[in-house]
């Protein structure tokens, strides 16, 4: 084939360079893989909350790795030590690399000090998924919630992260909101750091 260079084979994965990360993966390949992940986990659990927990754990592993990789690639070795810093990192950088665009919005909760919400019209992972009525409040976005949780916890901001459907007037499909509730110690440390 014209133009195919010889790809250098590395003996060990530690020798391979990290790369700039300009690769894109086909959406259909991901959709198939994700649907298999959900179907496999469905056979392993008895109820919906366990299924959500499993998806969250799968996402957590991704989040832990994404955090280190992206900080190394994009931030030139500066860590995030403040709450707003890490939230905007998740909202823009992480979303851009994973889903190709920044998240629709990042809001602070009005009722509680420790709640923040990232909203999205439709999560990429849910594009080809429809939830049957008898599964109630199940949300495949639990995978994305797990990714966010992985990023936040490993950066030192432990939080409980969940994904919810929020019905919007005038639209058929509800919006998705990722609700982030930070632990006590995060708020105390933020207050201490000023």
């Amino acid at each position, binding site marked *: 084939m014209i133009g195919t260079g010889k790809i250098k084979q590395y003996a060990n*994965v530690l020798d*391979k360079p990290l790369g700039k990360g300009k690769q894109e993966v086909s959406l259909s390949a991901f959709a198939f893989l994700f649907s298999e992940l959900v179907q496999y986990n469905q056979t392993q659990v008895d109820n919906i909350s366990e299924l959500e927990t499993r998806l969250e754990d799968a996402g957590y592993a991704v989040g832990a*790795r994404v*955090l280190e990789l992206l900080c*190394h690639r994009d931030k030139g*070795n500066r*860590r995030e030590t403040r709450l707003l810093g890490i939230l905007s990192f998740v909202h823009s950088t992480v979303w851009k690399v994973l889903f190709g665009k920044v998240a629709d919005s990042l809001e602070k909760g009005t009722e509680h000090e420790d709640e923040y919400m990232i909203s999205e019209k439709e999560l990429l992972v849910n594009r080809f998924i429809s939830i049957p009525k008898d599964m109630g409040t199940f949300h495949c976005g639990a995978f994305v919630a797990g990714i966010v949780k992985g990023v936040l916890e490993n*950066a*030192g901001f432990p939080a409980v992260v969940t994904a919810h459907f929020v019905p919007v007037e005038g639209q058929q499909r509800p919006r998705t909101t990722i609700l982030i509730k930070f632990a006590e110690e995060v708020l105390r440390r933020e207050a201490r*750091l000023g």
Partner: protein
Amino acid sequence: MTTAACFIIASRNDIPIYEAEVGSAAKREDAAQLPQFILQAALDIVQDLAWTTSAMILKTIDKFNDLVVSVYVTDDHTRFMLLHDSRSDDGIKSFFQEVHELYIKSLLNPLYLPGSRITSSHFNTKVGALARKYL
């Protein structure tokens, strides 16, 4: 060039996940675990310092007799700690950055549980080579 150095990677929860003796020091019989003690003691200081600055390299944070502890903290709060007796700051910074890249590569392995010991012998070899190059 350093003659004595001990390099430890400690996870977020202060559990060592990798240890190496780098440099050509003769091991002292009476204080074989001394480097580990000194580095463990420095962990407290690292914990406080890590939140005050957004830089990754914390440089020299503690002294013990004539030995000096330098620390580099990554994003997920994994600490790279080096106990040494010289002051080649730039060399140490480059050493930390290269080991950081190695760490990210081994972290990307889906079969590696973050926070568990790094047992790859190739990792060992590479860290040794980097130490000879930069320290």
